[in-house]
């Protein structure tokens, strides 16, 4: 692999994890971001599960796109094929982990079913196609996106643990405060835009 390739992958890695963060600037995967961010350790668990599934899904979706859809000139079926592949994949991963790696399943198991309907997984698969990434670049992009998700959800969980003790106006308790916090985090993440 040449120097150029490594540089390109590095750009994708930083770009997808920090600069255009999946939740804070693209609004994908918002439900788990808001829903499972009450405690730092559950947030980290969710993050790990997301990293695992998105990386795997971008590899599988990338391979299917290249070797099946492009090969038979049916690229327009990508949305249908990807959503089915992802749903099946998550089910399969769940069964596989349960059998083969019970300890990992214990740690990630509860989060896996929640990821099926997570738009970030489908979003990454489609973005990989739209940006014409190769399979390797697609996997790196998926991994980086998921890492960005994990960073964001862990930070939000940390902030929410502190917010518990604050006296907040009644109407703003709960979700509005979390959204305001996320908005402030999004402003902070705007600072990364000078990075590339």
């Amino acid at each position, binding site marked *: 692999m040449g120097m150029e390739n490594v540089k390109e992958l590095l750009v994708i890695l930083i770009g997808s994890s920090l600069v255009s963060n999946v939740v*804070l*600037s*693209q*609004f*994908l*995967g*918002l*439900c*788990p971001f*808001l*829903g*499972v961010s009450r405690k730092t350790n559950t947030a980290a668990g*969710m993050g790990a599960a997301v990293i695992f599934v998105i990386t795997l899904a971008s590899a599988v979706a990338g391979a299917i796109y290249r070797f099946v859809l492009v090969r038979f000139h049916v690229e*327009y*079926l*990508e*949305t*249908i094929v990807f*959503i*089915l592949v992802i*749903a099946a994949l998550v089910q399969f991963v769940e069964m596989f982990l349960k059998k083969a790696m019970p300890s990992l399943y214990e740690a990630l198991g509860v989060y896996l*079913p*929640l990821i099926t*309907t*997570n*738009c970030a997984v*489908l*979003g990454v698969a*489609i*973005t990989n196609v*739209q940006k014409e990434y190769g399979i390797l670049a697609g996997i790196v992009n998926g991994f980086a996106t998921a890492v960005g998700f994990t960073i964001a959800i862990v930070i939000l969980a940390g902030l929410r643990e502190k917010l518990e003790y604050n006296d907040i106006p*009644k*109407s*703003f*308790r*709960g*979700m*509005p*405060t*979390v*959204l*305001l916090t*996320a*908005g*402030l985090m*999004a*402003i902070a993440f*705007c600072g990364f835009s000078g990075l590339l």
Partner: protein
Amino acid sequence: MNNAGERLYNGLVKENPTFVLMLGMCPTLAVTTSAMNGLGMGLTTMVVLALSNLIISLLRGIIPGRVRIPAFIVIIASFVTAVQLLLQAYIPALNKSLGVYIPLIVVNCIILGRAESYAYSNPAIPSLFDGIGMGLGFTFALTCIGAVRELLGAGEIFGLALMPDSFVPIRIFGQAPGAFFVLAALVALQNYVKDARKKAGKSYEKIGSGCSEDCMNCSEKGCTKRFYGEDGTRKAAEPDKEER
């Protein structure tokens, strides 16, 4: 026809998917940078929602209960693909500005939610109008949010300058953080209304009863558990009490 009208009213006002049920928050935040984008996204979603409701309702005797979710997804994804190709051909500018969010209509929980909770257990015509009503409600909400963000962020609505020259646009409202702030204000307003109604002795359970209690518990209780029982089996379709 009365039933159809009732469905439209239900989607637009009584169970507005965005303002009342708080469903489909990802596209709501992502594409409402301007009123025009919100309108485009809303109408696109409405077309998919209405057509998939219609087809699912027509096929409800044929699709076996056990595989209905994959079947719904295939039907919805087919319509999304068709709509995406039409947009690419006829309104390429809109297609470009909505980008990845067009294919992501597939995972918009409003559509799967309506398929499961209405279309799968109701006749075709009310299902079609249910889809149109919900879609119009979604369009209305996205256009409103888009208009607010465009007005604050650029001083315009639909590209028409409305603010006096002395107004300095708050650019942040056109960007990602602004979406969170506008939605936070919206939910706070909803909480306020809910509280006020509770004090007045009126129940308003519908508010925030969407996919979850205002998306917060979305993943904990989960869309899944709302539509299926704890063990993943389908809950018996509860007839809409207010309707009959």
